[in-house]
C-alpha cells in the first residue's frame, strides 16, 4: 500500500446487499483510497481510487454548485412529467428524493424497481416465510439457491453458510447446498471440506414450470408427466424430500435472475412451496437482492408514501403501479420529459434521451454530457449515512472516512427542492 494518512480495519460497506463491516482500507492525505486486495471485489471497486473531479457542470461546462442546483430546479420546474430514478444512494438521499417527488409531482423508481416489484407482488399475492441473514447463518442445514446469490451478495456463502461458529452448533460439514439455475458460481458454494453443491442446471425461462412443480409436489399433489422442462420429476421429488427432511431449510431466490415475464408468479409459487413445507418442518425463504440500497428505497417508499417504488405523486397523493411507472418504460416511450438521476454508489451513466440532472460519483462516464452534472459523495466514504441490508431488517450505519467536500445526495436534493414550487 502507498504511504497513507489513515487506515481503517472495520469499515462498513454499502456496495452490496450483505452489509459487511470488516473492510480494511487506507485513505491518503489527498483522499485516495487503497483497499486491502483480499477484500471483496465490490468493496475494492466501490471504495478504491481518488476523490475525482468534484466540479459541477452545466451542459458540460464548469459551474458552481449553486448554479448547478438552480439549473436543476429550473429543468424540473418546467418539466411536465419529471422522473426521479436510480436512487442508488443512502437512506437519507432516498427519503429526500421521494419527498422531492411528492413536492413536484414526479414519478420515482429505483434502479432495481423490477426486482423489488416482482418480490412485492408475490408477497401481496400470498405471502411467504422468511428469515434474516443471521438466522440462516446460525441454523440452516440445507440451502437451495435459485439464481446466483453472489450477484447481490458476493460473500453470501462465505459469511452465511460456511461460517465455522454457530449458535446452534451446526457446522459447515452438516450443511448441504443445491444450486438451481445457469452459469452459477460453484466454487464459492463448495463446502470447506470440498463437497460440491448439487447443481440443477436449468434456463431461467424454465424456472416457472420447475417451481410450480416443486410447489405441487410439496403440497402432495401429482405431476402428470415424467419430466418438467426436461428435468426428471424424480429429481424434483428428491429435492422436495430433502427440503421436507431438513431441520431448517432455506430457499434463497434472486428476483434479479428471473428475467422473464411475470416473475412474480414464480415467486408466488415459491411462497406456496414454503407454506406447504412448513406444515411439518421449518424452511424459510430469502429473497436475495438489495444491491444499490434497493431495500432502503423499498422501505422508505413504504413508510413515506405507503407504497413501494414505482410511485407517482399526483397532487401530493402517492400512486403505485409496477408496470405503468417503470422508469425504463417511461423513458422508452418518451413519456418522461426530465430525469433526475441519482447514483452515489456505482458510476453508471443515466439512460439517454431526456434532459438529465445527474447526481453521480466523480469518474462516471457520460456518452453525452448531462444538462446538469453534480458530483456527489458516496455514503460510507465521503459522508455518514445508512443503507438497508438485503434482508430489510438491519440498517447499516456508514461512516465518513475522508473529507472530500463532495455533497451528500440528500443535501443536494433538498436544496433543489427548496427552490421549487409545490406542485399544483
Amino acid at each position, binding site marked *: 500500500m502507498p504511504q497513507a494518512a489513515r487506515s481503517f480495519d472495520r469499515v462498513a460497506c454499502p456496495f452490496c446487499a450483505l452489509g459487511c463491516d470488516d473492510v480494511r482500507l487506507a485513505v491518503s492525505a489527498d483522499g485516495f483510497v487503497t483497499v486491502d486486495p483480499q477484500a471483496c471485489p465490490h468493496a475494492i471497486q466501490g471504495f478504491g481510487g481518488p476523490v475525482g473531479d468534484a466540479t459541477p457542470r452545466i451542459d458540460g461546462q464548469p459551474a458552481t454548485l449553486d448554479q448547478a442546483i438552480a439549473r436543476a430546479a429550473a429543468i424540473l420546474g418546467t418539466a411536465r412529467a419529471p422522473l426521479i430514478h436510480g436512487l442508488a444512494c443512502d437512506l437519507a438521499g432516498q427519503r429526500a428524493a421521494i419527498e422531492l417527488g411528492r413536492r413536484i409531482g414526479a414519478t420515482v423508481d429505483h434502479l432495481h424497481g423490477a426486482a423489488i416489484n416482482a418480490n412485492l407482488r408475490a408477497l401481496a399475492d400470498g405471502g411467504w*416465510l422468511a428469515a434474516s441473514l443471521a*438466522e440462516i447463518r446460525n*441454523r440452516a442445514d440445507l440451502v437451495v439457491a435459485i439464481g446466483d446469490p453472489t450477484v447481490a451478495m458476493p460473500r453470501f456463502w462465505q459469511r452465511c453458510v460456511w461460517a465455522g461458529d454457530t449458535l446452534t452448533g451446526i457446522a459447515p460439514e452438516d450443511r448441504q447446498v443445491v444450486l438451481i439455475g445457469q452459469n452459477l458460481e460453484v466454487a464459492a458454494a463448495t463446502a470447506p471440506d470440498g463437497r460440491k453443491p448439487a447443481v440443477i442446471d436449468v434456463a431461467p425461462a424454465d424456472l416457472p414450470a420447475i417451481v410450480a412443480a416443486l410447489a405441487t409436489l410439496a403440497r402432495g399433489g401429482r405431476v402428470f408427466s415424467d419430466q418438467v422442462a426436461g428435468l426428471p420429476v424424480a429429481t424434483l421429488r428428491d429435492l422436495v424430500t430433502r427440503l421436507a427432511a431438513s431441520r431448517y431449510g432455506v430457499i434463497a431466490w434472486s428476483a434479479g435472475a428471473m428475467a422473464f415475464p411475470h416473475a412474480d408468479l414464480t415467486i408466488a409459487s415459491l411462497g406456496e412451496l414454503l407454506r406447504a413445507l412448513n406444515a411439518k418442518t421449518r424452511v424459510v425463504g430469502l429473497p436475495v437482492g438489495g444491491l444499490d440500497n434497493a431495500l432502503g428505497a423499498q422501505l422508505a417508499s413504504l413508510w413515506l408514501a405507503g407504497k413501494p417504488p414505482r410511485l407517482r405523486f399526483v397532487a401530493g397523493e402517492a400512486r403505485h403501479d409496477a408496470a405503468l411507472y417503470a422508469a425504463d418504460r417511461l423513458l422508452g416511450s418518451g413519456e418522461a420529459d426530465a430525469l433526475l438521476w441519482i447514483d452515489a454508489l456505482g458510476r453508471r451513466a443515466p439512460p439517454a434521451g431526456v434532459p438529465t440532472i445527474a447526481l453521480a460519483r466523480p469518474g462516471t462516464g457520460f456518452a453525452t454530457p448531462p444538462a446538469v452534472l453534480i458530483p456527489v459523495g458516496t455514503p460510507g466514504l465521503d459522508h455518514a449515512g445508512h443503507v438497508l441490508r438485503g434482508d430489510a431488517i438491519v440498517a447499516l450505519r456508514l461512516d465518513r472516512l475522508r473529507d472530500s467536500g463532495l455533497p451528500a445526495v440528500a443535501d443536494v436534493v433538498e436544496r433543489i427542492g427548496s427552490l421549487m414550487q409545490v406542485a399544483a
Partner: protein
Amino acid sequence: MPLTLLQGGRVVDPANKTNVVRDIHVRDGRIVAAEPGAKVDRVHDCRGMVVMAGGIDLHSHIAGGKMNLARALTPEQQGVIPPAGLTGLRYAAMGYTMAVEPAMLPSNARQAHLEMADIPIIDRGAYAMLGNDDFLLRLMLQKRDHRAIADYVGCMMHATRALGVKVVNPGGISAFKFNQRSLALDESGPFYGQTPRDVLLTLARALDTLGVPHPLHVHCSNLGIPGNADTTLGTIQAAEGLPVHLTHLQFHSYGAEGDRRFSSAAARIAEAVNGAKNVSIDVGQVMFGQTITASADTMAQFRNARFASPAKWLCMDIECDGGCGLVPFRYRSKDYVNALQWAIGLELFLLVEDPWRVALTTDHPNGGIFTSYPRLIRLLMDKGFRDDALGQIDKHAQAATVLGSIKREYTLEEIAILTRAGPARLLGLKDRGHLAPGAAADIAVYREHQNREAMFEAPALVFKDGVLVAKDGAIMTETRGATHLVRPDRDPAIERELRTYFDRYMLQSFDRFAMTDAEFGPEDRLAVHPCRPRVA
C-alpha cells in the same frame, strides 16, 4: 417568550387530582403558573370545553420492519396502516401527542427509529424486545448471575435507544425456530431449556434491578388460544410480585367452555388483576372491520394463519433476536368468536377496578386501528350506546357475555387516566400526562358533547409543546416531536461478551449494531427520562 392563555376550560387532570374550571398558562412549550400582571400574547377561549393533557398511547405498532412488510403485504388496505406522515397527523388531530412502538427488535432498532423520526408532531418511544434472543437464553442456560443479565438488558436498552423492554411469548419465538409449535408456561424450550416462566421472571427482575420505570411489557404465551386464561393467571403468578404490564390482555382472557369451546374468562382475569397491585394492563380491544395483525409472535401468527382474510400471510425469523408474523384479519360482528373477543375486551375494561392500571389500546392495528379510539371511549362511557352495540353482535356471543349486566360508565376523569395520566405514570414520564406547571404543554381541548365519540374524535384545540398543531380535527402546522428513552445504569463490562458474540455469530460488530446519538438528526430531540437508582 410569548404567553398563551387557555381560558375558562374545565381542566380534567387526574394526576393532580384536578377537575375544575380554571385557566392554563403556557410559555416556551411548558405549562406555567399564572403570572399576575404578565402580558398575555394569545388567548384561547375554552369556556364550555374540557381540557386534558395530550393523549399517550403506550402500545401502538407505528414503525419498524414488520409495519413495512404489512404495508407491502396488503397494498389493497391503504387505510389500515397509514404512512409515517399520516400516523402523526391522525394521532395529533385526535388529541394524542405521543405513541410508543411496542415491538422494536434490537436488530431492527435503527430502522425503526429512522422511520419514527418521520412521524410528525407526536413524541415517540419504543420497547426493545428481549426474551427470545439467543444471547439472553444462553446467559440463562449458563446460569449467569442476575446482575450480569441486568447489565445485558441495560446495554441493549442503551444500544437501541429504548424506553422499555417487552417480552413476547417468552422463549416461544425462539422455540418456533426449532420447529416447536407450542410452548406452555412451565415447559422447557428446545435447545436452551428455559421455560417461559423463567424468562419472564428473569427479565422482570432485570428491569427492577435497573430501576427502569416501565414494568416489563408482557405479551403472554398462548395468545389467542381458547383456554389461555390459565396461562395468563399463571403469568401473573410467575412475576412473583415484580412489576409487569400485561399487554393486549383481551387476547389472553379466553376460556374453553360452552358448546363452541370458546368463552370469556375476563371476570377471572379481572379479579386476578384487581388483586395483584404489581400488574398493569392494556386491553387490545377488538373493533369490527378489516385490519392486519402484526406481531413478533411467529408461533401464534403461524397458528392463526389459517384465519387470514384476505388469505395471505407472512412469518419471518429475525436475526437471532425475534421474529414477525403478519396475518390480515377481518373482525366480524356476526362471527361468534370475533363478537365475543369484542365483548371480552369491554368486560376487561369494565371489570378491572383501578383505572391507573389500565391503558386504552386496540393494540393498533391488531385489534383495530387507533383512529377507532373515540368510538371505544364512547363504548366505555355510554351504557346505552354499548347496549345497542351489544344487541348488534352475534346472538350466541351475546348470550356468552356478562357485558349487558355491567352498569359501569367511565367518567371523564377515568378516561383521562386511561388515555394520558395512567400511561404517563406507567412509562415514567414525569412531565407528561398532566397539566401542572412544569409539564410539557401537550394539551387537548375538547368540546363538551353528549356523544363522546364526536367529542373525542376532533378536539377543538391540540397543542404540542405549546404549539397549536390541530384545530377541530384539522392540522394547523407540522412540528417535530421527541424520541423518549431511558438510560439505566449498567456495567458495560458485559459489552466485551457482546463484542465477542457479535464477532462470532452475527454479521456485523456490536459497536456497529449499537446506535449512536449522532444518528438522530439535528431536528430529532432525545428526551431521556430518569431511572430509579440501581439495586444490587
